[in-house]
């Protein structure tokens, strides 16, 4: 078949036809958009459409002993996450587990937040929900599970747990290259799920300024290949590692447990700080920027967030659609320590 035959094939379009149709489509599209903005100025909500990716939902949650699953379900709905989107999906929840001190609820993602997230996803029809973590400091993951109270919840609700420090692995090229790491090695379970949900804790951090949904994903990197506590990532740079991991994994959602967070010398030795909120979002840089503002911290002064925008997501307040409570309504400045370099100059 010669060139003339191909251009006249009625299964395809000529360049001129393509330009005409594109112009007509643009005019039609503009008319539809104008009508949409006129009749639905706030945008359509679930179950009709998906909200814009940079929306962030804030809900008050003053204590753990309340119906947290209903709050999470409300947040999922506000974020445009439909039952159709979740039905049949395999969901991996990645909590923040670090160390334990008996009775300390401000170090790790609270077990009742994990339980609520499991219930919410199962309610929307998820085929399977599992919890996975590669604990950063401790090699005895079971002891951390037990002493954090999460083991009890997992056992009672029959929720499977995967120790990411010891899973079999796959390796991919590090295309983002915020660090010098040429490759990234991930646990196989990440390939076997449809959604990765970062279930983080709202804390200050003495190396990164804060630890929220993006830093929480350090925990998916297997200790067997990165050391304890994730030595390779510290060696090549924490901020860049956060960006490389998030760019490679593209997690679908994050929920930050700010019901009881940590201020001061986080992520372990700080003091409890109640922000009384759950914060949720599909776009993790936007979500972390919102959490930082709630904590009284300027997200533009946090190295990893400044590096995330705009390629991985927006962090400007004007670029993030706030759903639920406003930042001002729940603002709870977290104490910073002047002697910690990562805390200097980040106050909002």
């Amino acid at each position: 078949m010669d060139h003339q035959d191909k251009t006249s094939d009625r299964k395809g379009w000529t360049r001129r036809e393509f330009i005409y149709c594109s112009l007509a489509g643009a005019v039609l599209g503009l008319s539809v958009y104008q009508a949409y903005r006129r009749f639905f100025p706030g945008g359509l909500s679930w179950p009709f459409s998906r909200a814009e990716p940079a929306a962030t939902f804030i809900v008050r949650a003053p204590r753990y002993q309340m119906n947290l699953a209903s709050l999470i379900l409300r947040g999922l709905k506000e974020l445009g996450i439909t039952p159709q989107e979740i039905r049949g999906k395999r969901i991996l929840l990645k909590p923040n587990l670090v160390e334990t001190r008996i009775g300390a609820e401000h170090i790790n993602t609270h077990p009742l937040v994990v339980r609520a997230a499991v219930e919410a996803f199962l309610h929307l029809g998820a085929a399977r929900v599992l919890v996975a973590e590669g604990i950063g400091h401790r090699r005895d993951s079971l002891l951390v599970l037990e002493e954090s109270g999460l083991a009890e919840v997992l056992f009672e609700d029959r929720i499977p747990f995967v120790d990411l420090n010891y899973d079999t692995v796959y390796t991919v090229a590090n295309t983002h290259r915020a660090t010098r790491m040429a490759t990234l090695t991930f646990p196989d379970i990440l390939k076997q799920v449809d959604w990765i949900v970062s279930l983080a804790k709202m804390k200050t951090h003495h190396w990164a300024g804060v630890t929220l949904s993006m830093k929480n994903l350090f925990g998916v990197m297997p200790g067997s290949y990165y050391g304890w506590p994730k030595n390779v990532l510290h060696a090549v740079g924490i901020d860049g590692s956060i960006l490389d991991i998030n760019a490679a994994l593209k997690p679908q959602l994050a929920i930050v447990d700010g019901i009881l967070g940590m201020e001061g010398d986080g992520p372990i030795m700080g003091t409890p700080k109640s922000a009384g909120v759950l914060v949720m979002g599909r776009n993790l840089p936007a979500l972390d920027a919102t959490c930082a503002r709630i904590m009284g911290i300027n997200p533009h002064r946090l190295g990893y967030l400044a590096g995330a925008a705009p390629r991985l997501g927006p962090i400007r307040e004007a670029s993030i659609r706030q759903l639920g409570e406003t930042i001002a309504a729940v603002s709870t400045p977290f104490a910073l320590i002047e002697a910690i370099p990562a805390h200097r100059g980040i106050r909002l």
Partner: protein
Amino acid sequence: MQDQLAAVYLETIRTRVLNQRGGFVGQAGGGYRPDATAWAVVALQALAQGAGFLQAARASLADQQQADGRVTLSPQHPDTFWPTPLAIFAWHQAPEYRQAQARASHFLLATTGVHWQRGSEVTPFEHDPALKGWPWIANTHSWVEPTALAVMALQITGYGEHERVKEGVRLLLDRQLPGGGWNYGNTKVFGQELLPFPESTGMALNALRGVVSQGQVRKSLDFLQARLQEVRTPLALSWGLMGLASWGEEPAGALGWIGECLEKQKRFGPYDTASLSLLLVASRARQGLESVFRN
């Protein structure tokens, strides 16, 4: 109790063996792991059982060894050389692997973490970063557990007086928490003393056995004595018990604690091969890990 534990262990370990390749999987249904294989060899040797598995398991570790002597998690990840001391343990009672063991020892003697001299500037941490030990992964700092494992491996292969081992001992003492015990390897950060872990403490105490005075580790022994009363998970319990045993201390009811720990599989599911093997070794190591290599 010991016989019962041995029977349960042998029954389980048979389901974790890789018959074609030799060696053991890490988790039931998982893939080959050199660390799991090494600990299974040490456990089977301590039981004087499983002769049929031992040869193939040791051979699988030799297959995993690279030209410079390191034993890594996989050939694709040469930086992950932390299983090298474990392979030395696994080969220790098999004369046919003397050469492989010597190459592994030489690799350890020639390898260190990233270290630097502390300058005049104020640093956020308090340990001496110049003291050389061993890292988990190449090109990173040295930490407590890989250093303790390397020190133990070199001690049993006759390098106890080597300067690298002596420096490793100094590193471990330097990383001991002021209040007793060890964690992954930081003592104080930004002026706050961090928390000790039973598993790290147990490993360090095994490495320091016979080379420092009891007074130098008394607080750490006291920490373990108190902490183990409430610990019933395999890694922390087994290393904690071996840490105490290496200094001649055995809490009353220790074997019962191992039984309680095994019972917890009803909650956690089957333990991974390394953890299960370590529990078995802890039940036999009446004077610490080193004592199981004397038989």
